[in-house]
């Protein structure tokens, strides 16, 4: 109960704070969906030039995929790794470490606040894109049911992975390169540049062996309705496995990182 009350108070303060930066929040949201929209436009152009489809993906399929990817990106995206570097380098983490609440909770709350405040605008934009490109969804009711645990697992995986990257700030003054590496890996392996199913087999194999696809591409396939029951089961198992691995790594990295923390600047 105490944690629920704490979350309620943090959420309230978070919404008050977010109200001060409405324009910035909207710009961040637009930044997050601009990439899927660019890729959608590119694939639509290619598909149209090739007679309406690429490897069986029609314009409507691409539209459905990228609209779903934008939804998924919005729901899983967390900025904790970037913010954490700033907090460590500025010594702002110190105040949080000295309170009887794990610093991860502040990030979770910030994340929820960001999503809730930007979701309505995103919904309008994506509906417009959906209609404009004639998105073709194959989603069955069971896809929606499976999507719920899948997106929660994806968001948790993204968040914990982000915290592992963030924790590098305990040792490295600048860890933006680690963030950039993660973004570039996601570019290919998370299904941003193209649906993984359209990639060469060896690249698909790599994507299935890395965590990035389970964060974005996999739940996108479920929401879009292209995943078979077997593939959905494969996705959920992969997400659970990666979440367990990442959480274990996070625990070790965090414990060691806090020991190495030099509280510079505060």
């Amino acid at each position, binding site marked *: 109960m105490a944690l629920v009350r*704490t979350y309620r*108070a*943090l959420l309230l*303060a978070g919404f008050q*704070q977010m109200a001060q930066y409405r324009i910035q929040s909207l710009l961040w949201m637009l930044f997050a969906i601009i990439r899927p929209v660019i890729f959608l436009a590119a694939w639509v152009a290619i598909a149209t030039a090739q007679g309406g489809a690429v490897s069986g993906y029609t314009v409507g399929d691409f539209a459905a995929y990228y609209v779903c990817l934008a939804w998924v990106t919005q729901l899983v995206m967390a900025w904790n790794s970037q913010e954490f570097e700033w907090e460590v380098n500025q010594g702002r983490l*110190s105040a949080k470490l*000295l*309170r*009887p609440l794990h610093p991860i909770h502040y990030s979770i709350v910030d994340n929820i606040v960001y999503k809730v405040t930007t979701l309505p605008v995103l919904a309008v934009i994506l509906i417009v894109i959906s209609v404009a490109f004639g998105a073709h969804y194959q989603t069955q009711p069971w896809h929606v049911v499976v999507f719920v645990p899948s997106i929660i697992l994806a968001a948790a995986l993204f968040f914990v992975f982000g915290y592992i990257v963030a924790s590098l700030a305990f040792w490295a003054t600048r860890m933006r390169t680690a963030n950039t590496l993660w973004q570039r890996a996601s570019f290919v392996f998370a299904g941003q540049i193209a649906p993984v199913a359209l990639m060469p087999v060896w690249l698909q194999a790599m994507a299935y062996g890395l965590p990035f696809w389970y964060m974005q591409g996999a739940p996108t396939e479920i929401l879009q309705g292209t995943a078979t029951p077997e593939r959905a089961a494969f996705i959920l198992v992969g997400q659970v496995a990666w979440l367990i691995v990442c959480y274990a790594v996070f625990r070790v990295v965090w414990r060691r990182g806090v020991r190495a923390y030099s509280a510079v*600047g505060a």
Partner: protein
Amino acid sequence: MSDAVVHVRGLEKIYKVHERETGVGATVRSFFKRKFKDVPAVGGIDLDIERSEVVGFLGPNGAGKTTTLKVLSGLLYPTGGDATVLGYTPWKREYAFLRRIALLMGNRTQLVWDIPAADSFLVLKQIYGISDADFKSRLDGLIELLELGPLIHKPVRQLSLGERMKVEFAAGLLHGPEVVFLDEPTLGLDVSMQARIRRFVSELNKRTGATILLTSHYMDDIVALCKRVIVIHHGKLLYDGALADLAERMAPYKVVGATLRDGAARADLSRYGEVVSNDGAGRVKLRVPRAEAPARTARLVADLGDALADLSLEDPPIEDVIDRVFSGEKLQAVAS
């Protein structure tokens, strides 16, 4: 097991610092092999602080004061030694421990900048699990003591430095900590705000019985608040005892103030002691060895006779003592 609220034995903290020479070669080499240097910040100090004591922690920049406070509040892991605060090992950062201590660091903000402090206080109330009654009474007390009334409803970023400091204090003390570590609480504040913060800290100690360990570069803070001081330098403890005894223990000299009548202003008094100042109008200050002070003063009186209008024999100002200690001049390490 000691009964002291803060119990420290052989505490050490060594920072590993990346070191590199200048030049292209050194830069290239540092890509492949990094050289690290051990920088000892705290070099094995012992101290005990009893409940409700207000202790001043003195030392120049880099002496290890802040590092010690950070270790004792649980922010840093020590390299060696042992410490307990309220019976807890600080760096384990148990929530039961964190609810009973506070580390307040100068102008470092703990509050959310974009919302009024009153809203941040409500968040802290839930984080620390403060009851409604305690929250109200403590907040009322802090508002009264710090004159916070109109400030807590303004967004924090609109407050001046001094105002922000005051609400920071309130935020850090809402949970009623039994041990408070104060690092440079008056840094950057104007004289009037410094005095107000001093009064507040003194009142806090009286009202709540909180144990306070305080660092400050302003001797006025220390003189106003602390009966006991701990002096550290290069991470080593130089002195631990009464502020009143510090000059006697650390400075091997006293100051003779002589006021001379007309005509004697240019008299050479250097044979009685080291002339510290001579304003040319008859007021002269001499530094004399502590052990010889009575004899030299007596000789001065006898030699000058009626030319002497006034005479005083005092301990040197505490700032001078500290300055001489930290600059290594006539250093007498008398840690006890």
